[in-house]
C-alpha cells in the first residue's frame, strides 16, 4: 500500500504539473510579454524573463485607446446580464420545482431546445429583432441576447439545485404565516445562495468573454465590449500590436479572476445540512 502510494503519488504529481504547465504557460507568457519593452519581443533567441520591466504598454492602452470605455461597457454588460438572468432564473426555477401546472416538465425540456441550434443561426434573426425593437447597436440589445442563451442553462442549474431544498421548509413558512413570496425570500432564497452564486459566476464569465454576438450585433464604440473592442483597435489588416494586446488581455482577465477568487469559497460551501432530518 505504502509503496504503491509513493510511486503513484509521484506519477500523479508529474501528470498534474504537466497539465498545469500546459494550461498556465500561455497566461504566464501573456503577462511576461506585456511587461517587456517593444524591442525585446521579437529577439531571437527569445528571452523568457523580461530583461527590463516596463509598464509603458499598460499606460498606452489606458491613456491612448478607448480601452476604459470598452471596459466600462463590459462591466455594465456582464453585471446587467448576470442580474437579469439570476432574477428570472431563480423565480423560474422555483416555479418549475414547486408549482404544478400542465406541461411543466415539457416546458423545462423546451427551455434547453435553444441549445440544439448553432448560435450563428440565431444571430441574424436576433439582429433583425433588435432593429425592429429599435434597440439595435445598444448595450441593452447585447444584454438581452446574452440573457437568451445564458438563461436556459441557468434555469437548469438552479432547478436541479432547488430540487434539493426540502419542500417542507416552504410549507413550514406558509403555516408560520408567510405569504408565498415571503416564504420564497425568507426560506428558499437563503438555501439557494450557493446555487445562485455558481449560476451568477457562470453567467458573468459567459457575458464577459462573449465575442461572436458582440461582433455582429454592435458596431459602435459606444456599445462595444472589451472582446470586440480590443480586437478592433489593436488588430488591423496590416499590424498586430502585440505588446498592447498583451497588456489589454491581462487587464481583461483581471475582473474574472477577481470575481472568481471572491466567490469560489461560496461555490463549495454546503448548504443547510442538518436543518431537516433524513
Amino acid at each position, binding site marked *: 500500500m505504502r509503496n504503491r502510494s509513493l510511486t503513484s503519488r509521484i506519477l500523479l504529481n508529474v501528470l498534474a504539473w504537466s497539465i498545469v504547465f500546459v494550461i498556465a504557460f500561455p497566461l504566464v507568457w501573456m503577462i511576461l510579454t506585456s511587461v517587456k519593452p517593444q524591442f525585446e519581443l521579437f529577439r531571437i533567441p527569445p528571452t523568457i524573463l523580461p530583461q527590463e520591466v516596463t509598464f509603458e504598454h499598460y499606460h498606452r492602452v489606458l491613456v491612448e485607446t478607448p480601452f476604459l470605455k470598452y471596459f466600462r461597457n463590459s462591466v455594465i454588460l456582464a453585471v446587467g446580464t448576470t442580474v437579469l438572468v439570476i432574477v428570472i432564473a431563480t423565480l423560474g426555477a422555483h416555479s418549475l420545482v414547486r408549482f404544478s401546472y400542465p406541461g411543466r416538465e415539457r416546458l423545462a425540456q423546451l427551455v434547453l431546445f435553444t441549445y440544439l441550434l448553432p448560435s450563428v443561426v440565431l444571430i441574424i434573426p436576433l439582429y433583425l429583432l433588435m432593429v425592429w425593437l429599435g434597440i439595435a447597436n445598444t448595450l441593452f440589445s447585447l444584454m438581452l441576447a446574452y440573457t437568451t442563451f445564458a438563461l436556459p442553462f441557468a434555469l437548469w442549474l438552479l432547478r436541479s439545485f432547488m430540487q434539493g431544498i*426540502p419542500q*417542507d*421548509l416552504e*410549507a*413550514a*413558512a*406558509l*403555516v*408560520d*404565516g*408567510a*405569504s408565498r413570496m*415571503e416564504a420564497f425570500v*425568507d*426560506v428558499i432564497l*437563503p*438555501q439557494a445562495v450557493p446555487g445562485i452564486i455558481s449560476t451568477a459566476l457562470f453567467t458573468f464569465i459567459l457575458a464577459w468573454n462573449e465575442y461572436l454576438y458582440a461582433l455582429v450585433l454592435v458596431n459602435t464604440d459606444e456599445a462595444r465590449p472589451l472582446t470586440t473592442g480590443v480586437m478592433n483597435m489593436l488588430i488591423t489588416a496590416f499590424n498586430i500590436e502585440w505588446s498592447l494586446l498583451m497588456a489589454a488581455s491581462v487587464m481583461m482577465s483581471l475582473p474574472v479572476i477577481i470575481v472568481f477568487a471572491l466567490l469560489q469559497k461560496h461555490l463549495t460551501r454546503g*448548504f*443547510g*445540512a*442538518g*436543518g*431537516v*432530518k433524513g
Partner: protein
Amino acid sequence: MAEVTFDKVRKAFGSAVAVRELDLAIRSGEFVSLLGPSGCGKTTTLRMLAGLETPTSGAISIDGTVVNELAPAKRDIAMVFQSYALYPHMSVAQNIAYPLKKRGVSRADRDVRVAAVAATLQLGALLDRKPRQLSGGQQQRVALGRALVRDPRVFLLDEPLSNLDAKLRAHMRAELIELHRRIGKTMVYVTHDQLEAMTMSDRIAVMHDGVLQQFGTPKEVYETPANLFVASFIGSPGMNLVKGELRAAGSGLAFVRGDLSLPVANGGTAGAAVTLGVRPEDITLGAGPFACTIRVVEPTGHETIVMAEAAGETLVARAAPDSQLVPGQVVPFAVRAQRLHAFDADGRRLPLVFAQSNGA
C-alpha cells in the same frame, strides 16, 4: 379553541387517491390521533387541514367556517412537520420567533415569548445554535417550540416522535400529554405507532388505504374494533385471528374450526364464514376446555409471550412471568368468552355473543 370538521373530504393525486370520503368531527380541545400504516393518507389529511393541499372534493371547516380556499397563513394553525423543517440558516431563537415575526409581533414581545417557550422546552442554552448543531431530540423540541410560541386554534403534529430513540420518545410522549392537559388546545396528532395513539389520545381515527376505519376512544378501538383491520392493527402482540364457520350445535350455534368449538349465545346464522378474534391476554393457559402445544416461549421480564398451536393455528398468548412452560408441552387453555371478537367474510365486526364454554 376550535372544532375541526372533515365533510366527505377526498384527495387524489392524479389517479392515485390518498384520502377517500373522510368524515371526521373533532371536538374543541380534543387530542385526536390519526393512526395507520405508512402511506394510508395521514400526512395528506393533515396537510389539507393546514392548507398545504387543496381537497379534490368535500369541505374542511374550523369552528364552522369552511376553510378550503383559505391560505395556510390565515388558518391560525401551528404544525410540527415530520421532517421538523427547521430553517437551516436561522438560529434556534430565530426559528422559534419566525411565526411571531410574520404576524407582526414587536421585537421586544418576540424576545419575551421565545424566552418563555425556550424555558418550557429546556432550549435556553441552545438559542444561538443553528439547527444542524442540534441532536434529533433537540431539533424536535425546537420544532415544537416554533408551534407553541403562538397561540393557534389548532396544533398539528406529524409523527413528531418517530425519529427519536425509544427512551426519549417515551419521555416526549409524557411531555406532550402534559402539554395538552395544560393548554387544552385542539391537537391532531399523526402517528403509525399504535402505542403512541393509545396512550396519548382522547380519540383515535384509524386509517387504512385512505379510508377511515374507525373513530373512537382508545378503549373503544381496542375493545370493539370495527373491522379486521383495526382488530389486527391495534394491540401488540396482535389479536389472534382464527377463520372458521358457524354451525348448528345442540339448541343453538357454535363457532367451529377443526376440533375447536365455541358455543354462541346470541346472533349469527348457521353456515356463515366467521373470523374469530382473541387477544393474547384473553387466553388463559393451564386450565380449560381446549388443548394446545407450546411452540415458543419468550420471557420479556414483566410477562411471557407464548406461541402455541391448536387446531392447526398458531395462537399467541400472554402468560405470567413466572410460568414454567417449555416448548413441546401440551397444556389446556381457556378463552374469555365475553371478550371475543367476531368478523364476517368482509371483515366487518359481527355482534356475536359467545357463551362461556365448558368442553370441546
